[in-house]
């Protein structure tokens, strides 16, 4: 349906382009007028822009439910039409994209509001107040790009959003591009942004190949046409190629093995960015892509199993690393990779509802956790500054200022924290809600969604062997590393003076968190495993076909609950019963030995990539540019062989005649040009003359031959 038709349906489908244009408007307003606006105004414009997009998403969801979930497309403009290639800017509203729209704009808006408070302080700690506006410009751009991603009706439009969010991720990771994560002058944050962009480009490379294959075999990139053609001619080789190429893209965007390495570094971005982009929304795009392509994946079991295994392996692998981290955001980052692994495993097994369900609940509780972690970090920063000022007031201020500048304090290191529940009680309870949801304890949201994935893995164990086991171990470790974090951050004794001075965050930050906490607690209601409560399942059925609503399996749920409780108990034994003291090594270090060293050091994967890919690439680049291209090709071959040889030949040919007639002409010419240009005379090195002569001779000879042959 085209735009005007859409507007006349009596429903709100025609509004769908606004999902993109509202955030873009917010962005432009802040870009153009933001310089003269107050921080509050800038933040409000951006939040309202995102909030209105949420309203549109709600209206679209309402329209869908009122029309029995019937998918609608809205044609906006033509894009690229060449031969059979017909690509348009066409939006698609169906129950799947609708879920994504709601999650993105809903969580996105809460994070916009939170960021008003967060960035207000962050720009002051970094001493660059002007940069406040830029943050919201990027954030609005991100929402717009994410909306293109989830609402596009073709693989290419999805790809536009896909790369667009990658750009925003790059810009926001490197938001403090002149610092490192500790606030020291450095290129580290910029490097982290670049790393993210490049890792994602590797994934995009795979996605592009998938697009090419799809087009040449199925004649279109528009979803329904592709699926129709694929089911009409289900060539397993072609479809396996497409789905596996796509998987490369998924591993890039959704941070799966082996391309996940960018996501931990992405924590260099301000915390709202970590929450919004690198936990709740952008990184789930890969999961969305697989669900969107369900009709393709369901045709090839082999490729699907690879997807499921990649997810399961990632889930466990990242969980082991999370256990060995000390930075509060790094733990959450690896946790995110691990949870994305759960989702990818789910959708790989064809458990699309479970995957999307977990995507939604994870967006709630992980955004909550990240933002609370941001609140903790700022609380520590406040403590740090209050502590420093406190010293200044009471002593030799000058000496202390210097001391303060030299001292590098890491406000995100859990070893610097301890007993924060006393100083930041609101944040503590919010964090607890998120933790229990992530650990998968009933009745919190994460329990229901994770359990559905585990149940699916159990039921499909015959076709997808190993997935259930890997995911169960990962689930155990999830509860363990979260328990470890809780004890280290909130309990025990303060391990630094800064922790003693930590301060609670203002309501502009905590109120959005409370909303997220409510969702983290009750979000499971989206799809409860009881007859009549499979809401999300029924909603998605309109798009992905019939879904069997699974009942609660007490065995699976029981095992996972017991595992989670056990893990939390172990974490209490290690970190809660005997709290970590300042300077004390991690209690796991001794019993686990080299295993823990591996976890602490992320299994040396970054080092491996450096040795195997990056260093050889740089060496190759150096060899090609310096040795081959310049020294050999440019200098030696062209100077010594061609140039010198030609010069000799030209001299030999021209010398006799050159002395005679031509010389006179050339001199005359030289004289003429000399008058108009002094620089020209410098070109009169005899060489050009000889050359011009030889050209002339050649032409004359050829012409002569042709004329008189």
């Amino acid at each position, binding site marked *: 349906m085209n735009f005007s038709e859409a507007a006349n349906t009596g429903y709100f489908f025609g509004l769908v382009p606004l999902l993109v244009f509202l955030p873009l408007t917010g962005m432009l307003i802040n870009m153009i007028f933001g310089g003269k606006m107050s921080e509050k105004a800038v933040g409000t414009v951006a939040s309202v822009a995102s909030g209105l997009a949420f309203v549109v998403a709600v209206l679209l969801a309402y329209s869908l439910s009122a029309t029995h979930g019937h998918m609608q497309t809205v044609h906006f403009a033509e894009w690229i039409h060449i031969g059979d290639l017909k690509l348009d800017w066409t939006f698609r509203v169906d129950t799947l994209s609708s879920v994504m729209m709601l999650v993105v704009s809903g969580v996105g808006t809460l994070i916009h509001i939170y960021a008003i408070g967060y960035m207000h302080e962050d720009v002051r700690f970094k001493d660059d107040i002007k940069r406040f506006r830029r943050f919201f410009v990027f954030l609005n751009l991100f929402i717009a790009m994410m909306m293109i991603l989830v609402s596009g009706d073709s693989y*290419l439009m999805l790809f*536009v959003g896909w790369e667009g969010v990658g750009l925003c991720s790059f810009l926001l990771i490197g938001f403090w591009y002149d610092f490192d994560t500790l606030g020291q002058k450095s290129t580290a944050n910029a490097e982290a942004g670049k790393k993210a962009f490049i890792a994602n480009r590797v994934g995009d490379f795979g996605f592009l190949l998938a697009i090419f294959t799809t087009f040449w075999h199925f004649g279109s990139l528009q979803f329904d046409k592709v699926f129709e053609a694929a089911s009409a001619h289900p060539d397993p080789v072609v479809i396996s190629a497409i789905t596996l190429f796509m998987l490369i893209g998924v591993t890039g965007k959704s941070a799966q093995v082996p391309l996940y390495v960018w996501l931990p570094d992405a924590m260099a971005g301000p915390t709202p960015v970590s929450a919004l982009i690198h936990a709740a929304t952008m990184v789930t795009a890969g999961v969305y892509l697989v669900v969107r392509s369900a009709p393709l994946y369901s045709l090839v079991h082999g490729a699907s199993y690879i997807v499921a295994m990649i997810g399961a392996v990632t889930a466990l692998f990242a969980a082991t690393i999370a256990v060995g981290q000390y930075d509060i955001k790094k733990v959450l980052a690896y946790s995110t990779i691990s949870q994305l692994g759960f989702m990818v495993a789910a959708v790989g097994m064809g458990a699309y509802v479970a995957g999307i369900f977990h995507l939604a609940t994870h967006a709630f509780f992980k955004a909550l956790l990240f933002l609370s972690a941001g609140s903790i970090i700022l609380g520590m920063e406040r403590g740090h500054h209050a502590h420093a000022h406190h010293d200044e007031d009471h002593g030799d201020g000058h000496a202390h200022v210097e001391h303060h500048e030299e001292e590098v304090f890491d406000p995100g290191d859990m070893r610097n924290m301890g007993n924060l529940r006393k100083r930041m009680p609101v944040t503590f309870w919010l964090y607890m809600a998120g933790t229990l949801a992530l650990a998968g304890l009933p009745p919190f949201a994460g329990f229901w969604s994770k359990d559905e994935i585990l149940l699916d893995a159990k039921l499909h164990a015959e076709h997808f062997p190993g997935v259930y086991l890997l995911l169960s171990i990962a689930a155990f470790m999830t509860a363990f590393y979260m328990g470890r974090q809780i004890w280290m951050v909130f309990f025990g004794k303060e391990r630094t003076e800064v922790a003693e001075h930590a301060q609670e965050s203002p309501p502009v930050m905590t109120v959005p968190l409370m909303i997220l906490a409510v969702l983290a607690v009750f979000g499971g209601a989206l799809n409860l495993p009881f007859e009549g409560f499979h809401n999300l399942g029924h909603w998605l059925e309109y798009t992905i076909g019939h879904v069997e609503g699974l009942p609660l399996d007490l065995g699976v749920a029981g095992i996972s609950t017991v595992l989670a409780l056990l893990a939390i108990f172990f974490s209490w034994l290690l970190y809660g019963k005997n709290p970590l003291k300042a300077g004390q090594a991690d209690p796991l270090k001794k019993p686990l030995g080299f295993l823990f060293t591996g976890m602490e050091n992320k299994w040396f994967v970054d080092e491996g990539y450096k040795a195997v890919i990056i260093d050889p690439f740089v060496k190759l680049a150096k060899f090609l540019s310096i040795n081959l291209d310049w020294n050999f*090709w440019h200098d030696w071959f062209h100077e010594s062989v061609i140039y010198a040889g030609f010069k000799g030949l030209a001299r030999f040919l021209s010398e006799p005649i050159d002395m005679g007639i031509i010389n006179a002409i050339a001199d005359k010419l030289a004289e003429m040009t000399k008058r108009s240009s002094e620089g020209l005379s410098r070109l009169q090195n005899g060489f050009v003359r000889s050359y011009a002569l030889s050209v002339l001779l050649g032409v004359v000879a*050829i*012409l002569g031959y042709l004329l008189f042959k």
Partner: protein
Amino acid sequence: MDFALLPNLVTFFPLVGVLILFFIKAENKVLIRWVSLLTALATFGISLVLLQQFDANNPALQMVTNLPWINVADWNISYYIGVDGLSILLILLTTFLTPIALLSTWSAIEEREKDFNIFFLMLEVGMLGVFMAQDLFLFYVFWEFTLVPMYFLIGIWGGPQRIYASIKFFLYTMAGSLLMLLAILWLGINQGTFAVPDLIALGGIPAGIQTWLFLAFAIAFAIKVPMWPLHSWLPDAHVQAPTAGSVILAGVLLKMGTYGFVRFNLPLFPEAAVKFAPMMATLAVIGIIYGAIVSYYQKDIKKLVAYSSISHLGFVMLGLFALNSQGIQGGILQMINHGLSTGALFLLVGMIYEQTHTRDFEVYGGLWKIMPVYGTVMLIVTLSSMGLPGLNGFVGEFTILLGAWGAGMPGEVLGSYWYAGLSAIGVILAAIYMLYMYQKIFLGPEGSIVESLKAKGHPLRDLSVREIITIVPLLVFIFWIGLYPKPFFALIAPTVDNLVKVLQAAMMH
């Protein structure tokens, strides 16, 4: 009014400015600047009328002027010019970039401005002539003619090694075009006409001879593009040329090479084109990867951009030799895209160079904070050059790669997916070297140049109004082509479709 006059008017209008400039005293710099800028703008205006009169649905040559010119010894050389879908966009690109480049010289060129502007307008005549000419001999005359002003632009207003660079530039192009001249003469004499449309209609060149003619043309054009491994002149020419020279060199002059392929090699020697397609595509792929990797290891900003051109033009060549509509249309559009984004890159590099007088990456860093407008503009252009969807570069690269993938299917002209597959790696590499460049200049802590300029009393300033005016038109097209390329494709599609039919017939042989 007879619109057939329009192409003539566009081509030679810059000479009006040249004529006026002759009568202006060299000291009267302001007047000189305005006269040449207004001339270039007027030429652009006339070319817009040309566009308006151009019938996009007509695949044939339009607004033709065909007059007998040289008729010695039965040589039917004619003054034959016209416009079709292959050339219309390049003509507009030329008239569009020339005033922009001229505007950029207002602060960059301080010596002998009169001569500079005269050469520049003469260069424009040459370039337009190349794109308009439909007679091989006339084409050759224009082709060689462009060398002369460019030679002086580099040789007089260039960097420290300008003499060396300008001679090299001259020699390489000249050496290549000699073979082309031979081929032109053979064609004209044996077929009895130099008119390209007539030659295509005549056809009937034996396959064996097509091979030789194809190669003779191909070498001339490949040097100009430049295709790997004939690129050695490019870094010298670009690094030494003044900013405006680099803009035109990258923006238009290199396109004369790619244009030559699509205007002459493909339609005149279709059988040979089919035969050589895998070889040309191989060179293109090597160029894409090689240019990209070598770019990454440059210490000089201009050199990086120069090498990146080798990679980008590799994409164009790959598209052209996919020999299908997606590839060729993408290739032609990518010529425009490269002109816009690389032109913009050279302009931007020139703008910072005027303030810092160095192009060494090591002294830069953190400029985004000091020059937010400059940083943002450069970011957009960088992303355009990297092929970010929504900007112009993507539309070209995507259609080219899609076309090459299709040409790689079993039984098609390239017959292997490796061409497109390897080239797509170039997309990853582009991110690596472009982001490297962006980071070195704009991100990280402030580089040493910031302090040293402050100490000298010339702290870095953001873009001036004139500089913004220079760059904004380019940005408009970067977004326009990226988001809504329909009108651009519409101009080239009918002519390309015709060409593809010819090529498909050749494939059947």
